[in-house]
């Protein structure tokens, strides 16, 4: 039986789940740029002169292998020379050992610190770390910009800006719908303000890390949605809604925002979860230094 990368799984019966290869859907965006999705998660890859630059790996060894096969079928004869991690989470960047074991791995330095600490099986440690907010990348004839606007979701989350295509890629930040669930590892204090900062760039196509490609107007609508939930959550809290009861939060916030944001796919199913998460931001005050007006990273100086 071959060695299986297991991420953080310890369950003895996880093999079938981890090895399952989902069907991938690939779409060409420009002469050099493609997007690929397993039906939920989404990422991008680019064709260079002699190699492929791929973002992320998908979230299981099977999905990483399916991603590899899809790239090989789309751009035959060129190896995946570079993988860029959008952020640290395993469901996006957890299995480079299965996707491209020899590739250079580029990531933000904080993302790299978390990955080194995590020691997840299959998640390769970055070989090139970026420090700062803006990086002009030139790899194998491909030019584009990587941006870390500040803590938004996960750690060291990089957006990619392609001026030639007037396209922005950002993983697990603003979604094209309302399917945020309990908003795992979102930094509520800073999410929208940093994502709105990316509107200073000239782009009209937005590729999110989940679901379908969207555009600038829908991205703005998504920012407006999160901000509106933040405001109504404060009102719910201020007006004695029992904020720990999901049905109560769902009823209050859905009634306030249904007319304006009910067009977002998944609004009815997710608004209670989103509101329950966001109202706790106002109860607790945000989570750690990432979630403060002057964000930083607690304990970062204790890590290599």
């Amino acid at each position, binding site marked *: 039986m071959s060695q299986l990368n297991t991420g*953080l799984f310890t369950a003895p019966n996880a093999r079938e789940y981890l090895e399952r290869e989902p069907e991938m859907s690939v779409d060409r965006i420009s002469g050099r740029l493609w997007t690929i999705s397993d039906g939920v998660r989404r990422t991008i890859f680019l064709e260079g002169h002699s190699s492929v630059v791929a973002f992320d790996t998908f979230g299981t060894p099977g999905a990483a292998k399916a991603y590899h096969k899809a790239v090989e079928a789309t751009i035959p004869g060129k190896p995946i020379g570079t993988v860029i991690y959008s952020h640290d989470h395993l469901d996006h960047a957890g299995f480079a050992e299965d996707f491209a074991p020899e590739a250079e791995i580029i990531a933000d330095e904080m993302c790299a610190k978390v990955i080194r600490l995590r020691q997840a099986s299959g998640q390769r440690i970055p070989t090139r770390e970026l420090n700062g907010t803006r990086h002009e990348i030139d790899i194998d004839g491909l030019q584009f910009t990587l941006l870390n606007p500040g803590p938004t979701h996960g750690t060291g989350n990089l957006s990619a800006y392609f001026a030639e295509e007037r396209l922005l890629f950002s993983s697990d930040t603003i979604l094209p719908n309302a399917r945020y669930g309990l908003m795992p590892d979102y930094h509520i204090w800073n999410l929208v303000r940093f994502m709105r900062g990316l509107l200073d760039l000239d782009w009209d196509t937005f590729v999110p890390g989940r679901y379908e490609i969207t555009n600038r107007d829908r991205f703005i609508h998504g920012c407006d949605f999160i901000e509106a939930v933040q405001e109504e959550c404060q009102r719910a809290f201020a007006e004695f809604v029992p904020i720990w009861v999901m049905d109560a939060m769902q009823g209050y916030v859905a009634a306030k925002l249904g007319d304006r944001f009910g067009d977002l796919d998944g609004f009815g199913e997710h608004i209670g979860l989103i509101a329950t998460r966001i109202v706790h931001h106002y109860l607790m005050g945000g989570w750690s230094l990432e979630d403060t007006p002057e964000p930083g*990273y607690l304990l970062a100086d204790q890590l290599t």
Partner: protein
Amino acid sequence: MNDLSDETEQAHDTPCEHCGIFTLGGDIPIQGAWRDITYVPVRDNIWSVSEGIYRTIFLKGQKGVVAFDTLTTPGTARAYAAAVGRVYPNNPIHTIVYSHDHLDHTGYAADMAPDANIIAHELCDKVVRARRSDGQLPATEVFADERKSYSIDGNEFELIYPGPTHGDGNIAAYFPESKVLFMVDTVIPGVGYTFFPDWHFTPYVSAMKRLLSLDWDVFVPGHFWITDRQGFIDSLDYYDRMSEFAQQAIINGLDPHDWAEVTKYTNLNLAGEFGQLFRFGEYCAMNLSRYMQQYLTGGWGIEGNWQQDTTPL
């Protein structure tokens, strides 16, 4: 147990002068609202107070009071101070110890005892200072060690940082003479609170188990009722079992964002083992959804990936 429901009308109507991180502006009714506080002796000089959901402790000293935390809002902070005054009249709260950084436990020292000395772990204080929340005062005395002994106004206790557990710089208070341990938002009677907000799962259980190397038999949590050593151990076992259930739920194809299915799955598969636990129906599905994320995304941030420490304290 006593009740403060007969507090003065003036106290009930005190407006909200500190508003945390609310950005709404204007009157925020919940901030100023009065909450009735109950108080109960624990052991020796240790008293515990609660407004029904939140719980904390204070210590009777020779000249005044050492209070842990500030409770949830400016209104509850004032009610807490009033409760302390009932037990120990005419003695000031001269010291506040912050359990951790969150506003719902330590957000309103400005309303409770604005001139008190405030002790916190340095990780807690870093976040408090960066947050700049209205009403949450920064510490006047910080410590960075794993254990530090204090002798304040006739009270001897230790503050212990066992590693990342929940929030930032979350410390236990250990009273060796009384064999009492107090720690907030970690072990709580019943299932876990909602979606385990700001819990650091990777190091959590091992860090908490380190506290079992100390000699205590009464545990005062930051919510609900006081428990004992076995209640503490049972709570940590719940986390270990939830870790196993979460992995199996992913293997079974459950989507943690599909709330209807997560609820159905929880009732079908977890009620047998956990259905008798306090607030199973309200929170267990959220617990499961959050735990599934641990395996899908990995731990969150540096604290959420901190490596496990199993060494005794």
